[in-house]
């Protein structure tokens, strides 16, 4: 049949073939070329190229984050073409040439450009992006010369990569610059981010890259049913640790039951598969509707069980009343009776100035690209933990307590942390299990969550249902507000969403009530702006709707309602933007319709008053040591800049070592508190050291290199000074948390384009105004503010954890079905910082991580409303919902 083709007429065959070989993987090694060097590898059968490169050759630049070829962190070049090494059989390496990020040389134009344009935050995805961008840049320049590609060209090329931090603006800028040849030679410009080069070259080592000699691997065995008492548990002789709570009950599918360890990952998996668990099943509730129906099974049977429920709240969880699976309300208000009476009257009269609706938000998973991971080791010095954590100090303290160890016998390290977003805030399953297994095995043990575990039981922002009623009076003032929110945090409680409605839009009468509805599903954890993001989704849409009904410009309305002077400054800026001023008015027509929306955000100012930092002069350098970890927010950079400015030092005279526990307490990186806690402490330490260097003289120039050399061993410690007029919460010095005076603010203007035929929403442009005071390091601050926009877009449009209605199993437990925003989904973002208003705070600035994401989803929704005249009440705004809504 193949006759016409027998001669291969005009045959085109672009593949490269090696000499015919027959490989029996059981016995034969593979010859391959890695980063230009011929090498022989002997992978075990059916491993992936990623495993061979990382574990056998120690090339840990390429990471494995999804195992499905979706996220791109494992990208390497195979004969020059990018490939996902997690999907590449090791057999494919035979006779081929592989280039990893380590093989790009460190001074590749793309690596220079990524460092110079701050095209990263946590850095976990960076090696993959760099490798793909290097291949793209080469191809682009060969075909188009040294010209700038469009954003769409870059987005097409980098479509197979995800950055959970949302550093996409910097990536666009870096790739564009590399294509034009701007980084062919060393520009001599120092990167802003202190560890930028380490991250762009793959040298930055994360917890998942740590693998001591003789290290065992561990696997967590998780519950396969949503509610059961565990009877017999047979681990077949494997080294294991029981992870069940005291009542031997599992309350959600995916809850850890036991962890096992073995010398190799394959053996650990086999041991996990062999574990036999007897489930004595209990009735389960798997959705909030069923949970609230009288007679439904209860997640918690009695007060003791309820008392042990985990909390998704960042602060203290206030004790609440329970009724079956309903907990609450936590009720707050201002002239509550007046608020309710006015709303009821308006409802009776059919007052058009009353807007009442029910909004909902989906469960959002943190799913940082570096999964939860711990490498644990015991030796004569005690317990050594490498942990991917947002709080080295917190893990060290909790570990000492958990294992009854003296503080100096616990050593916690997190030099680079691949994202957290609130999900890595303490001693977790990965650490407890790894340490216990290491003790049992008498060997170091590494435990890394897979993506399924990460998306199932490693943190999420609880879903919500919010009933809001907002009333304007005849003069268009806010007359009354009522907000009831039911949190959907699985087995966890602590929803504080409606409560956020107390903190904005003046002192108008209002009643806010928070409830928890518990179900047999995985627990929530605090997630960047906890409570704030779902509140803004409802509240900021309600304000927008009142503006529509009053026929008033939504910014002008907020200028009347919002008493926060810092946000007033942002409104004035926003109102003057061409993006806002020149926006289209009136009904839009046609398939593609554009709209512009605005939303405001509010966030409390928290800090860690106990934060300290230590400076030591070593070998002519000022070395800063802090237990504080850099999870991508840039604290290493902030410290570096303060030291260089205060002490007038050159780059090579400063070194900042973050993420090692020690006697000097660091701060946790959550609650937007890292910089405002540690920045002022660093300034104090630098001034103290300067004074010591001058021998007590009040003033003098910068220390000479010789003087620094001579000052070997000189040491200074800085503490965070208290704010002028103190804090709202009266706290002792040793407290790790205080609520400061003033609220951070943000205003987002978002332009979207809606495809009314296929239901998609494309964010086009965004203005992000942030009022968090003085900016310590502008480039990383901007980067973080853009990341807030990106995560808010994910929340508004794509992200939704889905559980099986029959078993509670997380169905989209992979990055294909759980949709994170990619580089093509982000708008062009213009960040504006209003830096005044925080003069009472040492250093003049507070955190911006949370306030820069809280209002974003509502700005998207208001833009959609502006474009198509339909208001999305349910988040995410999926194509099916949009088409249904505008039909």
């Amino acid at each position, binding site marked *: *049949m*193949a006759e*016409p*083709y027998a001669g*291969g*007429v*005009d*045959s*085109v065959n*672009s*593949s490269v073939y090696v000499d*015919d*070989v027959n490989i029996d*993987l059981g016995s034969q090694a593979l010859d391959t070329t890695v980063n230009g060097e011929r090498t022989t590898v002997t992978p075990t059968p*059916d491993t992936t190229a990623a495993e061979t490169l990382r574990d056998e050759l120690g090339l840990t630049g390429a990471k494995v984050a999804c*195992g*499905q*070829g*979706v996220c*791109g962190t494992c*990208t390497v070049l*195979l004969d020059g*073409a*990018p490939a*996902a090494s997690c*999907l*590449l*059989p090791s*057999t*494919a390496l035979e006779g081929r040439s592989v280039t990893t990020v380590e093989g790009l040389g460190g001074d590749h134009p793309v690596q220079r450009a990524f460092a110079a344009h701050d095209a990263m935050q946590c850095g976990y995805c960076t090696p993959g992006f760099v490798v*793909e961008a290097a291949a793209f840049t080469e191809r682009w320049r060969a075909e188009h010369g040294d010209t700038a590609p469009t954003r769409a060209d870059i*987005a097409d090329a980098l*479509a*197979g990569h995800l950055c959970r931090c949302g550093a996409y603006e910097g990536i666009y800028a870096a790739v564009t610059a590399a294509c034009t040849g701007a980084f062919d030679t060393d520009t001599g410009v120092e990167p802003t981010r202190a560890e930028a080069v380490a991250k762009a070259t793959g040298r930055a080592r994360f917890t998942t890259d740590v693998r001591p000699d003789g290290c065992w691997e561990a696997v967590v065995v998780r519950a396969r049913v949503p509610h059961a008492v565990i009877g017999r548990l047979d681990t077949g002789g494997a080294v294991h640790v029981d992870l069940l709570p005291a009542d031997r009950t599992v309350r959600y599918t995916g809850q850890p039951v036991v962890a096992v360890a073995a010398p190799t990952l394959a053996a650990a998996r086999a041991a996990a598969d062999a574990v036999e668990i007897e489930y004595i099943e209990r009735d389960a509730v798997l959705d909030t509707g069923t949970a609230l129906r009288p007679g439904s099974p209860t997640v918690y049977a009695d007060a003791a069980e309820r008392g042990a429920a985990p909390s998704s709240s960042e602060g203290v969880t206030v004790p609440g009343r329970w009724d079956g699976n309903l907990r609450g309300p936590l009720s707050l208000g201002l002239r509550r009776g007046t608020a309710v009476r006015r709303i009821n009257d308006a409802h009776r009269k059919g007052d058009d100035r009353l807007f009442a609706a029910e909004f909902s938000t989906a469960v959002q998973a943190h799913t940082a690209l570096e999964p939860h991971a711990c490498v644990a080791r015991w030796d004569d010095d005690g317990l050594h933990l490498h942990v991917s954590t947002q709080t080295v100090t917190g893990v060290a303290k909790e570990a000492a307590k958990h294992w009854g160890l003296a503080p100096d016998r616990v050593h916690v390290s997190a030099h680079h942390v691949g994202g957290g977003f609130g999900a890595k805030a303490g001693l977790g399953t990965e650490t407890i299990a790894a340490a216990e297994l290491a003790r049992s095995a008498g060997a170091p043990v590494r435990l890394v969550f897979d993506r*399924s575990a990460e998306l199932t039981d490693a943190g999420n922002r609880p879903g919500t249902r919010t009933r809001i009623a907002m009333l304007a009076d005849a003069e268009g003032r806010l007359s009354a507000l009522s907000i009831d929110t039911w949190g959907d945090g699985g087995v966890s409680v602590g929803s504080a969403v409606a409560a956020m409605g107390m903190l904005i839009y003046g002192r108008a009468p209002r009643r806010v009530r928070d409830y928890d509805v518990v179900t047999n599903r995985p627990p929530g954890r605090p997630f960047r702006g906890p409570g704030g993001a779902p509140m803004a989704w409802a509240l900021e849409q309600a304000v927008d709707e009142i503006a529509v009904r009053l026929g008033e410009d939504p910014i002008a309305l907020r200028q009347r309602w919002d008493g926060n002077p810092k946000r007033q400054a942002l409104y004035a800026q926003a109102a003057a933007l061409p993006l806002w001023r020149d926006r289209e008015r009136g009904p839009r027509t046609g398939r593609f319709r554009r709209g512009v929306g605005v939303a405001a955000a509010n966030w409390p100012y928290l800090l860690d008053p106990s934060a300290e930092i230590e400076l030591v002069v070593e070998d002519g350098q000022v070395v800063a040591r802090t237990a504080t970890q850099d999870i991508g927010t840039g604290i290493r950079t902030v410290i570096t800049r303060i030291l260089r400015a205060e002490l007038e030092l050159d780059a090579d005279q400063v070194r900042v070592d973050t993420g090692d526990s020690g006697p000097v307490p660091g701060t946790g990186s959550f609650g937007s508190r890292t910089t405002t806690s540690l920045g002022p402490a660093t300034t104090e330490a630098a001034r103290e050291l300067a004074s010591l260097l001058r021998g007590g003289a009040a003033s003098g120039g910068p220390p000479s290199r010789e003087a620094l050399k001579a000052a070997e061993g000189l040491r200074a410690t800085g503490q965070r000074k208290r704010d002028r007029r103190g804090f709202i919460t009266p706290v002792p010095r040793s407290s790790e948390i205080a609520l400061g005076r003033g609220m951070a603010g943000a205003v987002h203007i978002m332009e979207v384009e809606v495809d009314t*035929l*296929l*239901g*998609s929403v494309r964010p086009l442009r965004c203005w992000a105004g942030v009022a968090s005071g003085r900016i310590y390091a502008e480039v990383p601050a901007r980067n973080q503010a853009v990341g807030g926009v990106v995560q808010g877009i994910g929340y508004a*449009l794509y992200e939704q954890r*889905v*559980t*099986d*209605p*029959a078993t509670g*199993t997380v*169905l*989209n437990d*992979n990055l*294909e*079905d759980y*949709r994170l*925003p*990619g580089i*093509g989904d982000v708008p062009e973002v213009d960040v504006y910082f209003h830096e005044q208003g925080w003069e009472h705070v040492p250093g003049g600035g507070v955190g911006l991580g949370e306030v820069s994401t809280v209002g974003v989803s509502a700005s998207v929704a208001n833009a959609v409303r502006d474009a198509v005249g339909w208001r999305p009440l349910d988040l995410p705004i*999926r*194509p*099916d919902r949009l*088409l*249904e809504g505008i039909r």
Partner: protein
Amino acid sequence: MTTTIPTDIAEAAAALRENGGEARAGGTDVMARANAGLAAGPFTDLARVRALGGIAWGADGGARIGATATIAEIASDPLLAAAYPALTATARALATPQVRAVGTLGGNLLQRNRCWYFRNPAFSCHQDGGDGCPARAGDHRNGTVFDTAPCVAPHPSSMALALLVYDAEVVVAGADGAESAPRPARDLYDAADPTRDHVLAPGELLTGVLLPPPSPGETAAYRRATARSRAEWPLVEAVARVVREDGAVTRVAVAAGGVARTPMRLAAVEDALSDGPAPSDAADAVAGIPGQCTPLPGTAHKAELMRGTVLDVLERALA
């Protein structure tokens, strides 16, 4: 578990026959399932079977594309782009650059479905030896909108749609390594069989695809409806090609995916556009689509989405 790496078709067929298990080409589906604990091998790795690769042109002007030609090779081939624009448009739109670089035509046609129950080791279904469909009673928002079979997972192959609109044929080698007569590409699939995503028997090997002689001046369009802009499995996808003679449209071919157990050619839509259609006729031609759908409880939204997606490709291909 063993992996065999044959160098010719006969060896590959023998390995599949003797070892069972699965053939593996680029590995983008097989390895993803292996990493998730859903494919245990043994694998017959096709990377070194030269005869399965490449793109060749026949005496009649039609192309033969080898089963292990990569999607990237197809997407970037200028001769294919000129001859079969619907094929090129489809190849360029699917997956991501890393997947296209190693993923193959044969792998795309024979990949397993994307149902999140099938791909979760916690569940069992028709597709993995079980006898039920947890998706049917569960959350099947990504399922079929033509509920005609026990399994509700749409077929995931985009390239199959492009082959359908060209009435392409496939060549299959039997367990003895000998190729049998070409058969229509659509015959690779059987909607009634809920146990697998293609009909090839164990030991059979897809070796290549035959395309008919090209139609000069053809225009084509591909679209996938997704939430995000890129790198997402389609809710619905469609491809259309329009053949003209002396400037007049003589034939319209259109197919849709993400909607049924098999890739679907839309004969009724084509019939409605048989008489020299203009772009403005497309809306009428697709108006009946939602009414023909037989959605599951959770896929009603796909009916309107399918109408929109097909309309999009027809309007662009007819323009």
